[in-house]
């Protein structure tokens, strides 16, 4: 279980300070799909960076099971990202000189044949079986994002963090990508940040962030009720 308690992230810009995240507490259960929703600049991505250990909270603490990020040395936090977490960003961030298969293998725990086979199988499952040896610039936007998803899944992380994973894709492709990500719930949790509520329709919980604070938390039932009421 991942838990953030009273998280605040403050950026300093000269004399002025900006609270990107303000006193946020959040809890994510295993195999849960959490959506973080909010307009641009609301602090949703900052919250994701905090939860994934890419940023350290100014105040507050994050726990993965009983392990507190704040007490971990930097290299342990890095190792945590490598073993327990997977990432999908708005841009694919594939390494341009590596093929699709190699990009996936970058995140594999070992660079051996077994993991290479696993990566091939994963890419085939994602519909890229015939494009294993294509470079990123030879793939479409959706295909690149699918390679990025495979890279996020290859090491079977406990949590996948997805930051605007469909932000640069058309609607149809975006929904396909989200379907692939949702499918990971059998293996671990998914935390997706977006400003598009449509792609969070299947989320177990949707947390809305405004000005760095949680504005609302709604489960499926509440959202369904809200929709039918409107």
């Amino acid at each position, binding site marked *: 279980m991942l838990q953030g308690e009273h998280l605040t992230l403050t950026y300093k810009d000269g004399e002025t300070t900006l609270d990107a995240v303000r006193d946020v507490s959040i809890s994510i259960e295993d195999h849960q799909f959490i959506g973080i929703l909010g307009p641009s600049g609301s602090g949703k*991505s900052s919250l994701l*960076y905090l939860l994934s250990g*890419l*940023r350290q909270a100014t105040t507050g603490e994050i726990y993965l099971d009983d392990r507190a990020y704040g007490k971990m040395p*930097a*290299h342990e936090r*890095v*190792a*945590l*990202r*490598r*073993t327990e*977490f997977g*990432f999908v*960003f708005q*841009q694919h*961030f594939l*390494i*341009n*000189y*590596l*093929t699709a*298969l*190699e*990009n996936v*293998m*970058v*995140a594999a725990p070992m*660079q*051996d*044949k077994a993991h*290479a086979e696993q*990566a091939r199988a994963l890419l085939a499952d994602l519909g890229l079986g015939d494009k*294993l*040896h294509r*470079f990123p*610039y030879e793939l479409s936007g959706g295909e690149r994002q699918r390679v990025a998803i495979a*890279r996020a899944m290859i090491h079977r992380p406990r949590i996948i963090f997805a*930051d605007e994973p469909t932000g640069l894709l058309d609607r149809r492709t975006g929904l396909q990508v989200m379907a692939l990500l949702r499918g990971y719930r059998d293996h671990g949790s998914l935390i997706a940040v977006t400003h598009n509520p449509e792609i969070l329709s299947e989320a177990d919980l949707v947390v809305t962030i405004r000005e760095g604070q949680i504005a609302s938390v709604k489960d499926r039932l509440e959202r369904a009720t809200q929709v039918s009421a409107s």
Partner: protein
Amino acid sequence: MNPLSTFTYYRRHKRRALMLTALLALAVMGLYLVFGLLQETYITPLYTINRYLSKFSLVQPDLGTTPDPTVVAQIRAHPDVALVLPQNNVEIAVPNAGGVDTLFRLIGLQEADVATVLAQCGVTLIEGQLPRPRTNGLALSQELATALNLKIGDTLERTENETGYANIASPLELVGILSGDVRLGIVSYEYLDNHERYRDLARYGVLVIARPGREAAVDDFLRQTIRSSRTETATYQLLKEELTRSLAVLYRIGIPLVLLVTAAITLVIGAINRLAFMRRLAEFGTLHAVGRSKEWLARRLTLETAGLALAGCALGILLAWGVMAFLNAAVYAPRGFAYNPFQVTVLPYVVPIPLAVIGFTLFTAVRALGRMDAVAIVERGELSLEGERIGHAARVRAGSLPRPLASTTFYRRHARQAAVLIGATALMIMGTSMFIFALEAFDDARQPLLTHLRWVSLVSPNALPLETTVIAQIRVHPAVERVIPVAVFSPLGIFVPPTAPNYPVEAYGVTAEDMAYLVELYGLKLAEGHLPRPNTNDIVIPWTVAQNRDIQVGDVIGNRDHPIYPNAPTLPSELVVSGIFTPAEAYADETWFSFMSLEFAEKYPDSWRTDLSLIVVPKAGQKAALDAWLESQIAGENRLVFTYGNQQALFQRQASTILFSLSLVESIIALVAALALTGLNYVFVTQRQAEFGVLNALGFSRLQLVGRVVCETLFTTGAAWLVAVLGCAVILLCLQYGLYIPSGLKLNLFNLTPWFYTLPVPVAVLAVSAGAVGWTLARLDPVAVIERR
């Protein structure tokens, strides 16, 4: 404000501009210092300390001690000659601040002439007194006294410098310090003339002073009319010609180095420019779309680089001047060899760098812009290197195990980048080590000069004939097998590439009986002809010398038509090559010396120097003990002892002095290379910030990323080292088979010393790159990278 000004881009990209300027400045400074210091160490001192020849000339016979009266009368009769004064002189070696010796004449003048010569030279006595007649007094210019570390009352003695002061048969006492336009060393003519030990060592001749304004005419007359194979002249014009020749030699040696460094720096700058170009494709596409021609764009790009190149060049020259001025003040001037740090003659060595960089930029800009499609660029948006297509070479094999993070993967997919890095590093390695290879080649090739001393030792007289008691002492020594009287000559020179002058190869004048014995002892065999017959002008020479000088049996040497080496004086008599020895089976056993008839040589006591030496043959197994005894008990003021050990040590001392200078040169280039290549590596790494940011986000620690980049650098520097070593090996083989073997010489391809000098550049590049990359990645913020995109 003009947004399209040539300088706008670099004004807004100061770090890049600074780096390119610094790289160029470093390269220019490095080359300037290398050639400036080489010039001030090996060439200029010759001119500096012999510039007295601009005030007077010297004429003396090539051999013997008596100036030809006809020649002297001819000089006196010349209308432009003001004065002809008798002079004698001995040469000493003056070490300069770089540890290199330069020959300088201590001129013996009669008392009445000293004031005239000083006045002619604009030199005055500032301390002490002038040498009195028939005393061992010496007056020296203060710079020379400083260089020789002498003050009034000190003596110049052979024991202090056996080779440099070999002609100082008896100590000379510094009694006066001179100061003036030129440097002088004056001793008493009568002292050198009357001293029995100087009589054979001193050269005799006349000192010629021209009428005012007629110096050039007298110089021409002495060079063109008086100078002959039997009469040596030392004039200002000849000095300048020698200086020009030396500069030409330096130029010949320098061209490959300049080419290598220029090529490497051009590659580095070209690679950096190319990265910048790729990042600016959108800018160029847009400008082209709004009506700027490709020629205009190419011109703008070239002008941008030209501005930086010229600024870098100017900065490099300024920095080099600063360093040269500092070295002058701190090292050279205090040792009597002050120089002008602003050396125009060095500029040609550095000018190719900015020119090559500008030319290369123009070429690549025209080539790249020629293929530019503005619409494609505008449609594809901003492209960076990361957006560049991977070449055909990068096609992957479907069945192979993916190794995405291997160093080879990156460079397989960035073959051009790898080629630039490897090429530039390899060129730098070759550039830095080539001097050492040349030196070692020369050193290897001349080893046979010493080979004969492995079997025997030589005791030679110094100024006076060997005393009979000493000869007797040697003869009865229990370790001595045989003592052979020998007249030692140097009738032939051998040319040892790449730059050495003709190296004298000694000839032993021995009796027929001793000759047969020595031939047997050295295991020599005649390839053709016969050994010299007694009382004839026959000479038998080694195969190498015959090959080197293209001499056949029956050839006559030593006359005007067949001089012993180009421009050499004639021998007292012609010699006929009666035989040629076979070459040794192994080059290490090669022996370079000739035999001729002792009886014949003794017919010319006034011209051949026939004070007999002794070849001392040890009993079996007694060589080391005998050499030790000769060196400790026999060597002295009147006797020179040549053993394999002390001559080898002398060779090594000479080589290590030069090696030290060259190591300094290499250090300068290695530093420049390391910084330039590190700069390039740094640029390449910064281009990959996104990759490193994402890898860090995915869980790769900074240490792992630094390790990966270090591995990649190790791969390129390792590959570059292999390429450089291969290149050096190819050059050595070309030298061996193209230059040395046809000259009868051989390089020792298994001499490891120069190969060690290929290591500093890759090691420095690796170390500095690791530091720079570590420093860069230590500040890596993955979130910033992700958000920036």
